[in-house]
C-alpha cells in the first residue's frame, strides 16, 4: 500500500483514503461541441502511460475530498512530489539532475 502526502491536509496518509483519478494536466476543451473527433480521442482516450515519471491526479476521498496532483515513478511506485490542483507542472523534480 502506498503512503500519499495530501498537499491540502499536509499529511502522509495510507492509499486506502485516496482514489486515483488518472493522468493530470489534460485540459478539457472549453467548447466540447466544436472539438474534432481527433482532438476528442486525444483528450478522452489517449494516455501517455509512461514507464517512469507520471503526472497524475489523486483525490483524498476519505479525508478532505479534494483533488490534487502527484509526480510518481511508475517503476518503483515512489512519490516524488504532490502539489495542489491548478498549480503548473513542476519545472524541476526533487532528485533530478541540475
Amino acid at each position, binding site marked *: *500500500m*502506498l503512503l500519499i502526502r495530501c498537499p491540502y491536509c499536509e499529511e502522509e496518509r495510507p*492509499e*486506502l483514503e485516496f*482514489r*486515483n483519478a*488518472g493522468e493530470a494536466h489534460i485540459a478539457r476543451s472549453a467548447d466540447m461541441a466544436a472539438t474534432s*473527433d*481527433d482532438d*476528442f*480521442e*486525444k483528450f*478522452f*482516450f*489517449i*494516455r*501517455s*502511460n*509512461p*514507464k517512469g515519471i*507520471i503526472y*497524475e491526479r489523486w483525490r483524498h476521498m476519505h479525508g478532505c475530498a479534494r483533488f490534487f496532483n502527484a509526480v*510518481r515513478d*511508475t*517503476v*518503483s*511506485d515512489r512519490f516524488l512530489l504532490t502539489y495542489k490542483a491548478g498549480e503548473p507542472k513542476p519545472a524541476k523534480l526533487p532528485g533530478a539532475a541540475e
Partner: protein
Amino acid sequence: MKKYSVFAIAREAMRGHKGWEEQWSSPEPKKEYDVIIVGAGGHGLATAYYLATVHGITNVAVLEKGWLGGGNTGRNTTIIRSNYLYDESAGIYDHALKLWDGLSQELNYNVMYSPRGVMMLAHNVHDIQVLKRHVHANRLNGIDNEWLTPEAAKEFCPPLNISRDARYPVMGATLQRRGGTARHDAVAWGYARGASVRGVHIIQNCEVTGVKRAPNGAVMGVETTRGFIGAKKVGVVAAGHSSVIMNMAGVRMPLESYPLQALVSEPVKPVFPCVVMSNTVHAYISQSDKGELVIGAGTDQYISYSQTGGLHILQHTLDAICEMFPMFTRMKMLRSWGGIVDVTPDRSPILAKTPVPGLYVNCGWGTGGFKATPGSGHVFAHTIARDDPHPINAPFTIERFRTGRLIDEAAAAAVAH
C-alpha cells in the same frame, strides 16, 4: 523434431532420458527478417506459429526482453471461457475456445486444456438479470452457457456455500461447460517448439529499444540490446509494455498499465472441481492439477510497471474467498505475484494495423488475455501476413476510439477474468 508420444517416453525411459532434444533452438539474430514479433509470450509465439503453419511465413523472429513466457503468460490464472456479452467479443473468444479444443494434438504438446466448467455466481437480483442476459446473448451467438439454480450450482460444485445466511448468498449461477483451464507455461512452450521447428527464430534476452522508420514513415526494423534487426513488418505483442514500444514508433495508445495480482495456496488433494467466479465480490478460484488453489485478485488503482501491487488488494480477494468457501479459511497461501496488464478504455483488445505502415499491434487484453491466446495468435498472423485483418478481429481497431464504435465489455461488467 522428434514427436512426443507414449513410445518416445518408453524409449527414453530405457535410455536414461538422454535422447530428449531441446524444445526450441536459440539462434543468433540475423540482420533481417520478413516479420519481427516483439514479445515471446503466448500471444506472440502463437502469432509466429500460425504465420509459419497457416501462411507459410517462416523467416520470422520473436524478440523477448526476458525469458520466453516469463511475463503475463506465466502470471495469469489460466482460466478459459468465451461467454462474453457482445458479438465481436463472442466471435474472438469463441474462436480461441474452438482452437483450445484440439490444441494439444495440433502442437503435439500437452497444454492440459481441461474443460471443467466455468461458473459465475449471482448474489443479488441485479446479478441474476445481468447473467441471464449473458446466457441469452451467448446462446444467440452459439456459445454454450446455461442458468443454474443454487441447488444445481451446489451439485456441480459441492464446496459452494448456498446457505441463505451467507454474507454473499448464491442466488443462482451461469455455467459454461466448455470453459476451464489450461497449463499456461505449456502453451508458450508448445507454440515455441512448433514455431522453432518450422524455422522461426526465438531470441530471448533481446530487448527492443527503438523502432526505426523510413522517411516515408514505414517500418524498417527495430533497435535492440543485441543490435539493429531489420524487418518490413513488425508486430507488437508486448502486453503491459505495448504502449512503451508503440511510443518508440511515435504512436500514442489508448492504454493504461496496471498491476494485477494472483496467488496460489499450498497443494492439496482434489477439492474443487471447476472454476468459480464472482464479479460482485471480485473473486475467482480454481484448483490446478498440481493441487494448488489458484486465486485471482483485482488490479491496483494506479498505473504501475512494478509487477507487485498492494497487499490490501490480495486481502480483499481472500476475504471474499473465505466468505464463500469457509472450508478454505485455514489454507496457507504459498506464493503471490503481479503482472502488468494493459487496459483499454472499453476493456476490449486492439488487434489491428496501425497508422504506421508495416507496424501491427496486438494489445489491450487487460486482465483476461490468456484465454484468447490461440485465437489471438491465429487472427493476428492473418492480419500481418495479408496486411488486412481477419473478419474476426476487424472490429478490434485502434480507430474505434475516434469513431466511437467501441466494444464496451467494460460496461458489460466483464470485470473478473
